[in-house]
């Protein structure tokens, strides 16, 4: 049980070079499952390795339960880590892989045996204890790696993209398994991934990073609903949010938006708080699931050209072109669609679900209180 806090953590691999991690601050509560999410090269793994003690810290601090860990060697931080490659010792059996960390810590051999049995039972590794890693499937290796972390009973778990070497079907199952184990054991966990679906489903909170910096921290649905900027908006969600250039104008007591030669009202955006943005270009964001093939309510519609249709079984993805400027627009509709490739059609849009972003900085324009 531990609280992990990171304060203005930075990493430069070469003096005078670019920052891999820049001034990252983050607090992970006791027992919390925090996900560091970002595209590859965004600095999330560097941050994790600094927390683990595997990488020297350029500046800032990492503390666990209030104690600064910067100078504490990795082995004394009481942290266990699951690596992307699993890092199972190839010359040792599963049993020895599990016990390796305990033996170093002078745990009595009877206690080692007891804990190996317990963890192997918990993760379904009992029949595999005598096998070497090369004789295991990807999923089994993953569970051994997880077991090796659990068996140590550390203060903190670190996961570095542990599912990225698994196939899609196994990934979903293992994701649920990791989540369940963490819930049962209750150890503070930091989990690095570039997969937004993994982050959304597994974490209590998500910390989204880009170019070495923290962009937004929050509960998954909160971040999904209120992205802090256009990067987060596009990074979370699959297919990503549609971002379109638009003009904002006053339309009575609420905002009115001009988009690809069409205009519609945004009744949920009172004009009062939007003075600075009026008559300027903004970026309008709308998620694919907020576009509707049939407008049942009083919804504004956009004239689109149907370019491609991707039936996924449970749903259908429509790739559309908007107006004369040919802005790409992606819609997610139900299983069946009446749209045909090459047609010009109207697609309805939920004006309440519209996001607005500053056109130059990409920062979200917050919706003024009514």
């Amino acid at each position, binding site marked *: 049980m531990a609280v992990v806090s990171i304060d203005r953590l930075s990493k430069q691999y070469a003096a005078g070079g670019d920052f891999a991690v820049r001034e990252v601050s983050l607090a992970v509560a006791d027992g919390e499952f925090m996900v560091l999410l970002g595209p590859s090269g965004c600095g999330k793994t560097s941050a994790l390795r600094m927390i683990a003690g595997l990488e020297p810290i350029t500046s800032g601090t990492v503390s666990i339960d209030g104690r600064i860990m910067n100078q504490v060697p*990795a*082995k004394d931080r009481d942290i266990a880590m699951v*690596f*992307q490659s699993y*890092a199972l010792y190839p010359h040792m059996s599963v049993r020895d892989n599990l016990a390796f*960390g305990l033996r*170093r810590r002078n745990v009595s051999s009877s206690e080692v045996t007891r804990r190996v049995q317990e963890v192997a039972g918990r993760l379904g590794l009992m029949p595999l204890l005598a096998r070497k890693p*090369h004789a295991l499937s990807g999923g089994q290796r993953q569970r051994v790696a997880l077991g090796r972390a659990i068996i140590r009973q550390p203060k903190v778990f670190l996961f570095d993209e542990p599912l990225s070497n698994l196939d899609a079907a196994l990934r979903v199952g293992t994701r649920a398994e990791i989540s369940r184990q963490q819930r049962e054991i209750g150890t503070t966990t930091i989990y690095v991934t570039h997969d937004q679906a993994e982050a959304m489903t597994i974490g209590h909170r998500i910390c989204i990073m880009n170019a070495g910096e923290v962009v937004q921290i929050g509960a998954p649905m909160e971040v999904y609903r209120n992205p802090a900027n256009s990067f987060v908006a596009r990074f979370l969600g699959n297919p990503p949010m549609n971002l379109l250039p638009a003009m904002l104008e006053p339309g009575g007591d609420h905002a009115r938006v001009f988009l690809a030669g069409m205009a519609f009202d945004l009744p949920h955006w009172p004009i009062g708080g939007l003075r600075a943005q009026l008559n300027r270009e903004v970026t309008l964001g709308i998620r694919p699931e907020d576009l509707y093939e049939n407008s049942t309510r009083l919804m504004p519609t956009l004239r689109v050209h149907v370019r491609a249709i991707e039936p996924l079984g449970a749903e259908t993805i429509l790739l559309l072109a908007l107006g004369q400027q040919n802005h790409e627009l992606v819609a997610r509709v139900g299983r069946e669609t009446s749209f045909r490739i090459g047609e010009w059609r109207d697609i309805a849009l939920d004006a309440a679900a519209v996001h607005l972003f500053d056109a130059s900085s990409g920062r979200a324009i917050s919706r003024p209180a009514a």
Partner: protein
Amino acid sequence: MPMRLWLSYVRRTPLLLFLLGYTVLTGGPFLWVASMSLRTTSEIFANPYGLPRHPHWANFADAWIGSNYSTYFWNSSLAVVSAVAGVTVIGAMAAHCLARYRFRSRRMIRFVILSGLVLPPQMLILSLFQILLDYRLYDTLPGLSIVYIATQLAMTVYLLEGFFSQIPQDLFDAARMDGYSDFEIFWRITLPIGVPAIFTTVVLNFVILWNEFLYAVVLMTSDDKRTLPLGIMHFMGDHQLDVAMLATGLMIAIIPVALIYACFSETMIRGMTAGAVR
């Protein structure tokens, strides 16, 4: 079906012929020496290619006892086994450090060690002679052993570093998080995983040093300290040539090498062909 089978034989014929030729070329001389080792010198001069009619197994006893081969064998064993052990331990440690750590002047140290690969022994022999004299190691087995370690270090480090650097960094990080020190990581991770590569260097070094002649002939002078290649040379005097004794001596010298190769060849081939460690 029989037609296709027949065709497959035809297709394989050139390869089989090549292999047959190669086997005769390499195995032939060995069998010839083996057959000579069981004949007397006069028999050999009468018919050099003949087979032993009445095998003279006593040749081996004569060579072993009468011709000092037991001493030469013991000297060779001492010098070579200690050198192989030394070069393996030192080489593995050096290779681990070069493969694993990024430290100041790493490239320089690596260059100095590996430059030993391209230095011809003739260039070193005079300076080695002088150094061994200065340290009173000239004409001693420990002196020869130290020279062997120095000369084989470059190849050993070169082979092992290549193998060790393919061991994923994650394994070392995992062991560090498990609480192991740098030396323990070398001992418990690098060495066991590197066993195939280490066997390869052990076999190669053993074969090379067991047959080594130049350093031994320059650095060893007393008869009771000679190694096997020098002992065999002893039977090739200006005025006498005891071919049977020579052949027997060669067989005695070959046996340990053949045994080592027979025991470790599979591990060695694994070491030489190993790509990624998984």
